[in-house]
């Protein structure tokens, strides 16, 4: 029998590291003091754009709506030359095929939510079927939600096993695990959920579904980045981060980028390891890029709303 290496020994999830609320909030606020000007601003805006997961997750989504969004992903603002595309389009599983077709030939990936998104209140079998369906339709990435009820009940093994099972069902698709931090109630629990997700095989950990307030905040993202850092030091395995919901302005996105740079450094500074889950952020970034290039702001009416 193969002996397990230390990295494969699981920690006791009842005893994960604590987070000091005042301290984490102060540290997060400190990143907002960095002044990003000139070429560093232009470079950062391009980077932010390339990290966006353009998202539509509504009950009223249709094939047409998804196709429009995919067209937007491929043609963010054709008036501007040499701008990157977004990282991915994020949709419900039943729209994966439509999105995949609409994005054919581009580098934009298709991400699908799964596992009874957004509440996660269903059976393991249904969640697995949901995931397998999304993957079979062609999803490059799967955004799952954890069972928050079980987590609050202290059934960490259940949460862990579920994530591990979904990971297996993903096959080659990368798995993003949504903690829904707005329902977890404390930074300590965000830290604990992050560790469970990473040890269970998450490729990314993600703050929110976007359906619950508060969604992503800088302090909560910092707690998760620090968990990623500790996991990396312990196991050597790199895990990505995706704050989602509530990031709609470039300035805030730049603060997140500063936080990423000073917490995890160079190896995470690409859309392979960091994403913004957002729908309206892209237009604000485009507006800023145009302003940086021409010196003038153009009204919002010039930027397409799909």
């Amino acid at each position, binding site marked *: 029998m193969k002996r397990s*290496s230390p*990295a*494969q020994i699981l920690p006791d999830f009842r005893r994960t*590291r*604590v*987070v*000091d609320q*005042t*301290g*984490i909030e*102060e*540290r997060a606020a400190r990143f907002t*003091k*960095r*002044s*990003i*000007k*000139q*070429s*560093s*601003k232009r*470079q*950062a805006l391009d*980077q932010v754009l390339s990290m966006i997961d353009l998202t539509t997750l509504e009950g009223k989504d249709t094939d047409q709506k998804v196709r429009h969004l995919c067209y937007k992903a491929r043609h963010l603002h054709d008036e501007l030359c040499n701008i990157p595309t977004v990282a991915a389009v994020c949709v419900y599983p039943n729209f994966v095929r439509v999105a995949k077709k609409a994005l054919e030939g581009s580098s934009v990936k298709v991400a699908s939510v799964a596992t009874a998104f957004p509440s996660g209140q269903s059976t393991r079998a249904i969640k697995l079927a949901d995931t397998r369906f999304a993957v079979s339709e062609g999803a490059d990435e799967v955004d799952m939600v954890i069972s928050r009820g079980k987590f609050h009940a202290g059934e960490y093994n259940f949460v862990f096993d579920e994530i591990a099972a979904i990971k297996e069902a993903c096959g080659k698709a990368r798995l993003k695990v949504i903690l829904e931090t707005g329902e977890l109630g404390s930074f300590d629990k965000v830290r604990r959920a992050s560790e469970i997700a990473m040890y269970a095989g998450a490729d990314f950990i993600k703050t929110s579904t976007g359906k619950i307030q508060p969604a992503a905040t800088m302090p909560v993202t910092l707690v998760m980045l*620090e968990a990623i*850092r500790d996991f*990396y*030091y312990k*196991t*050597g*395995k790199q895990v990505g981060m995706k704050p989602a919901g509530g990031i709609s302005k470039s300035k805030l996105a730049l603060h997140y*980028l500063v936080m990423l*740079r*000073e917490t*995890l*450094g*160079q*190896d995470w*500074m690409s859309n392979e390891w960091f994403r913004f889950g957002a729908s309206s952020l892209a237009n604000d970034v485009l507006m800023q890029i145009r302003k940086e290039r021409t010196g003038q702001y153009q009204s919002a009416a010039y930027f397409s709303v799909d």
Partner: protein
Amino acid sequence: MAKKIKTLRFDTDWQYDPAPESASAAKINAQYDLFIDGRWQKPQSGKYFETINPANEKTLSRVAGSNEKDVDRAVRSARQAYEKVWKKMAPAERGKYIFRIARMMQEKARELAVIETLEGGKPIRESRDFDVPTAAQHFFYYAGWADKLDYAFPNKKVAPLGVAAQIIPWNFPLLMAAWKIAPALATGNTVVLKPAETTSLTALKLAEIIQEADLPHGVVNIITGAGKTGVAMVNHPDVNKIAFTGSTEVGKIIQHSIAGTNKRSTLELGGKAANIVFEDAAIDQAVEGVVNGVYFNQGHVCCAGSRLYLQESIAKEFIQKLKDRVATLIVGDPMDKNTDIGAINSKNQLDTILKYIQIGKKEGSAIYQPACSLPKKGFWCPPTLFTDVAQSNRIVQEEIFGPVLAILTFRTDNEVIEKANNTPYGLSAGVWTDKGSRIFNMTRRLRAGVVWANTFNKFDAASPFGGYKESGFGREGGLHGLTPYLEII
């Protein structure tokens, strides 16, 4: 899973461009006289000395040097203002003047911050977000006490002492001026204040504000000069109260000088604070607190957490995290809004710091400094940390007053209390633990004037500050900060 543990790389492709604050936001005269009796007066010494920007060694201005005659003139002015105006004035009226000074400081906040950074070398982010607002807050706080002293000391009678001679250091020039002047005025005393010779300009700007605020002439006198001026102030027979912040060495000389006189004194002197991290602490936040505790203001902080005690079980991980964090600190132009660590205040202080770094190396401790390119001109020292350090090392025992951290380890609560208290100083300490009962146990047994729990270097005008042992006596700030300026019967 990957086996090879890599390290994090902070030399990122994406770098921040310079974001300098504009020096033109400040008006600095080519030369300053002495502010005595509400007017700018030429020094009888006839002498002026240059004050420079420690980040580029360029001259900023010329400042008057005061001799004994100048000191005497300032004290006489303060005495006259005390007897004829200030002690007779209704307390509510005194409060109005102090409120006015506070408001005007806020109005001129940007200019004050720029000058503080140009002359002191501290990052503009700190002058802007800490020094100036905290100084204004101090005036606001004590302005509120001016007409409420009967409530501060119920069933007692209080009276001002008279003329206070106040001598302040170069690490927080404006803030220390506020700490000294605000409670003295609120309690009805008049003031002769001397800033340190390397950092006179914000005190002189404050004199301009005081002049503009129409404070009665002579209530606050600001004179400049070096150590000899301070000696003349301490020895002047008509001074009732000495308030000094500075080195323990000078504090001892002052105590000798005023022995046998009826002068009151408060001394806020050196420190060598222990910052203690237990294994159950919120580690990443503790790392941040340790960094802010020792590298804030280039370590020119009397309460800096310069001795770090780590519980052995977390020491290795903690030091790794500390190095990661220190690697992201930006050292350089203090006027750049992104700078974390600015210039060392003077050549003298830089020499002291470098001497101690040599001592640390000779004692066999392992040194870590992040790779950073330092400007050619000016006085610079990168953030430094020493590991493999023992209690008997000099870098653990003596105050360095620079960005140098000595890291020690411990095993039990009792052991770390004994080690933390094993110092002639007793100004501040920090405790990092998730366990509430341990915080109370530690704070009760640590002999330090301020003990921070799960934070460090937090200041508020309402909170008293001061030391035990060779860190001095008397308290500044809060209700406690009123008593050293009052006769309480």
